[in-house]
């Protein structure tokens, strides 16, 4: 059945509007420069980035090992996405507001979070989110919700006339959820000092990027919200950093928000509870390993004569020490009391909860007697 019998396509059309998007990359897949070395990327800057990326990887490995031996809960490794977290950590200024999702280890370390605190969090202890910059948000599990908080924080900065930005991370899967779009939209119309970084690691658990969205890029989601969008090579820590600098500049110039799509690859399982071999080929993963960010930066450091195998060995040892130390502190942390679950329910203790506190008291007594 032919539906549109009298149809002449394009009749009555005039051109309305055009858009274009850029891609940022400095370091190619073979660690070759594809663009001039940026001014910010001093030797020290490169070395510091590298060190934190390695620390990130060592930490993740250890966390997985802890989980496998029953000493940690479910854990989301950031294997292969270390440049993402570290670039953000490098670019954040002290008084910015950082609104993470749950795979931002590298950024947390640069933000001054203790490794033992992250372990506490994933180990099932609320105290893991107690420390850190007062204005930063804790790890966020309900997908995409954090971006509305970041929009609110950015609005607060603007209302109070402060110069900082709010920086928020989200996964490729997260870009499908309403909160992502609602927040980008308000950032566009209110011209908020908001920087949205998408860790496009190509999967949302088992769902590949192409089944998440029919658009060619996630960066183009910026267009519908009237904010600036850009895509960057997420295995190139400098590209991510450059994009953030430009985004901050836009915010400072009152030009509003930026959406940065960071192209990475999730080399590990989604979390320790996942088995990625059920839904993707080992061939695909093997190919992704060829592009991974640590190796790429290491090659550059070698090329620049900033690195050698001795330094590498020392760094690996230092990182292992730091992580082992954190693990020791984590494992030695005294448990919270059962009653602590009632703490911080409200700013003041509600009198009507006394009864339940008594019930818990009896319960604890029974459990103690029983063991």
């Amino acid at each position, binding site marked *: 059945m032919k539906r549109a019998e009298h149809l002449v396509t394009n009749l009555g059309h005039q051109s309305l509007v055009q858009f274009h998007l850029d891609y940022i990359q400095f370091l190619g897949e073979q660690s070759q420069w594809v663009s001039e070395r940026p001014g910010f990327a001093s030797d020290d800057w490169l070395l510091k980035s590298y060190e934190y990326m390695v620390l990130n990887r060592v930490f993740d490995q250890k966390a997985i090992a802890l989980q496998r031996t029953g000493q940690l809960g479910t854990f989301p490794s950031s294997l292969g996405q270390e440049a993402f977290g570290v670039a953000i950590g490098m670019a954040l200024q002290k008084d910015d507001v950082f609104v993470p999702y749950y795979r931002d280890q590298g950024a947390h370390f640069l933000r001054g979070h203790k490794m033992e605190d992250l372990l506490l969090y994933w180990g099932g202890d609320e105290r893991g989110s107690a420390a850190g910059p*007062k204005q930063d948000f*804790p790890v966020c599990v309900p997908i995409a919700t954090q971006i509305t908080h970041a929009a609110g*924080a950015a609005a*607060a900065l603007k209302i109070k006339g402060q110069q900082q930005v709010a920086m928020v991370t989200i996964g490729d899967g997260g870009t499908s959820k309403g*909160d992502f779009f609602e927040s980008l939209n308000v950032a566009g119309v209110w011209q908020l000092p908001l920087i949205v970084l998408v860790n496009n690691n190509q999967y949302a658990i088992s769902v590949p990027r192409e089944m998440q969205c029919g658009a060619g890029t996630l960066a183009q989601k910026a267009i519908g919200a009237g904010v600036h969008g850009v895509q960057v090579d997420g295995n190139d820590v400098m590209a991510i950093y450059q994009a953030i600098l430009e985004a901050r500049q836009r915010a400072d110039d009152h030009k509003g928000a930026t959406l940065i799509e960071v192209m990475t690859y999730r080399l590990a399982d989604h979390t320790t509870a996942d088995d990625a071999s059920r839904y993707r080929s080992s061939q695909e993963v093997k190919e992704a390993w060829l592009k991974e960010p640590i190796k790429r930066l290491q090659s550059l450091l070698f090329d620049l004569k900033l690195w050698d195998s001795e330094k590498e060995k020392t760094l690996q040892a230092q990182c292992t020490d730091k992580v082992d130390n954190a693990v020791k502190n984590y494992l030695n942390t005294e448990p919270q009391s059962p009653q602590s679950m009632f703490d911080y329910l409200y700013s003041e203790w509600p009198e009507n909860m006394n009864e339940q506190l008594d019930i818990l008291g009896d319960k604890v007594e029974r459990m103690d007697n029983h063991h």
Partner: protein
Amino acid sequence: MTVAKNLDESENVDAVLLDAVNLALHYEMARDESVVVLGEDIGSNGGVFRATAGLKDKFGFKRVMDTPLAEALISGMAIGMASQGLKPVAEIQFMGFIFPAFEHLFCHAGRMRNRTRGRMTCPMVLRAPFGGGIHAPEHHSESTEALIAHIPGIRVVIPSSPARAYGLLLSAIRDPDPVVFLEPKRIYRGAQQLIQNNGQALPLDKCFTLREGKDISLISWGASISETLQAADVLAQKNISAEVIDVATIKPLDMRTILSSVATTGRCVIVHEAARSFSVGSEISAQVSEKCFLNLLAPVQRVTGFDTHMPYFKNENYYLPSAQDIVASALKTFKES
């Protein structure tokens, strides 16, 4: 509706409930510059009920923000603002549209303090008009306070008079935790009351005993307080002395006041518009029965909406509790004992 220019600056005003909300917002925004207001149509339009009238002119667009049409966003941004030292008072235009805010209320607003062991808190207010009886379209008349009361870490507050609206809204804004503040729109333009516009707040964890009595306890909140008071009058004519308690602070729930009333009277009728089952009334009835076991002279009665959808407005009066319904249930407690 009597909101007049500069009414907010007067000392003593005759105000309906809607005026009282407006006055409290004016008062607190003037007193505390970290208070900001956001929502749909709350700026230039002053709110579809005019609850936020005059705020934008007085405090400017930076503190009085018309948002895009997105309730998840409104609630989520309020959390973000609260985290940075502001005190957002967000409006959901009608409670029937509050559902997109649930994820943020449940997963974040209510638990930010707990999750960060006190580092980050969420001093926000989410206001919403609710309830039936004004011949509104579909979705504009529901009472779903039970859903919110079940959420840990949230306060749920419902005023039933201009004075309580004024005092409770002030304390809701000043409270360091998230408060869902539900305004019974059927009595938005009900009886006037003289309000001392002096910034005096009311406690957030106490029921209000509106009328003392010794034979039966009538427990209610929101718009149904009117019918409950009427019922008490009718009962008085029958020589039954009814105590009337306005729960007002639904969560945390002040059962102490309710229980000590029922312990004295031995009889209890709970009145609310919301659907009957799995409701705030269920909790009160359960606790009254559990804890006044030896004092109760008759089974607790509930006068409520039905477990159906709120019917469209042609039939809404058949859904809403009336004074006669309350009287009939009250009388039952005397027959059955």
